[in-house]
């Protein structure tokens, strides 16, 4: 009779409970957490900034343009000041020390001057979205605005959005000379390597100045 062996009955019951719990745990954790997904794209989250838009320099007498101070991407709600970035001692591009601002690489042309101007921002921190979290939502034709120290505004139009594995980063495409005023916004993306704590890819948004 079961009542004669209370320990055995208890063991059976406990075993069944543990099996049920283990199975439930196993099944519940088999669906990967999709992570934080951007909210649906649609209407611009921010109004376009205002300011005098200065015609890009005519190549005959290139006028120096002022340094960039802020970046606005209305469609994805980006509005950030721009800090300045250089190279690390090993020759890599510095990144902003906080994930909430973007930075302009001072070794690249100023936004609106002839050439490929480089702006970098984080996709996320260890806990949540960074300033360029929604960068991949941009598509050809979307507008990007850079305000400069003299109050003038440079307006850019996205031409393409590319994802590159970091070990196959196309340096010449991204940083090489171009003959018109262009912008490159760079952040991380693709798969996240939990061992190295790094994303495996970079997202590059290519844009050209609207004249």
């Amino acid at each position: 009779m079961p009542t004669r062996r209370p320990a055995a009955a208890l063991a059976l019951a406990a075993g069944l409970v543990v099996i049920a719990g283990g199975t439930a745990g196993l099944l519940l954790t088999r669906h990967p957490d999709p992570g934080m997904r951007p909210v649906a794209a649609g209407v611009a989250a921010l109004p376009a900034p205002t300011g005098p838009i200065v015609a890009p320099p005519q190549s005959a007498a290139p006028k120096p343009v002022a340094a960039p101070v802020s970046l606005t991407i209305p469609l994805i709600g980006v509005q950030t000041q721009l800090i300045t970035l250089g190279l690390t001692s090993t020759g890599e591009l510095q990144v902003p020390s906080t994930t909430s601002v973007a930075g302009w690489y001072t070794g690249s042309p100023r936004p609106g001057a002839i050439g490929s101007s480089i702006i970098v921002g984080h996709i996320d921190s260890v806990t949540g979205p960074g300033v360029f979290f929604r960068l991949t939502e941009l598509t050809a034709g979307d507008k990007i605005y850079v305000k400069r120290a003299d109050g003038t505004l440079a307006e850019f139009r996205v031409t393409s959005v590319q994802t590159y594995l970091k070990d196959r980063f196309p340096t010449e495409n991204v940083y090489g000379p171009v003959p018109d005023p262009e912008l490159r916004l760079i952040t991380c993306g693709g798969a996240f390597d939990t061992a190295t704590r790094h994303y495996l890819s970079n997202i590059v948004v290519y844009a050209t100045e609207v004249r």
Partner: protein
Amino acid sequence: MLLAASALLLGIPAAATAYASSATTGTGWIRLAHLSPNTPAVDVYLYSFGNSNAMIVLHHVAYGTVSPYESVQAGDYSVAMRGAGAPATSQPVLSTSVTISAGHAYTVAGMGPESGLRLQVLDDELTTPPGQARVRVIQASLKEQVVKVSLGSTVLASDLKFASVTPYQTASPGTETVTVSSSGGTATSSVTLAAGTVHTLVVLDGASGLEVVNLEDASGAGKPPLGGVSTGFGGTAPHGPGSPVPWLAAIGAGLLLALTGGLRLRRNRQLPARV
């Protein structure tokens, strides 16, 4: 069995998509120039080949004018020049065809004297050696038919004839004096060539004497950063399902416990009933 099951259960996330395609979006660049000293101002038209509606019209382009680059889809185009103000439907004074390749830049310039005016297509360079600049010279002075052009102490061209173009040459970055000397005299100009930039120096007839115009053909990062950029800490990355081992262990332990308990109960029942 366990291994197979766990591989199945792990549901290894599919690798993220990587676009190996070139950054170029199938576009190239073209700019238009008037470099014929005794030719009056012109209207310059750019047509996509076979299309009679001009894509771009530059009005009243005078000698010495070089337009900014226009980004256009790779393909065949034609460039036509008409006298300034002439109807768009009138017969052009001059026209030429140009094939624009993706990722390449071209200058289409009216060159030579008015009597021998021609449209010349120049391939413009878009690369520099790391940390260096590139420079070439267009000789567009009719007053001085042959010139010598130096950048600092480096001779870029010693006997450069009117309406000719030198190849690009590598130059150290910095600010240098450009000296153009000819039988008629010497003109100097200060130019800054930054690392990672490509320039064209144009020798023009000035109001008096020669002028040098420094065109920036292209510009990039003087010191291109190495490799990609580390701009993420994973806080929003999709998390993997984690290891199934603890759960499988729990199930195993539960099975063991239940079996032991169950067997003991069963053995108990099989014993002869005690009186």
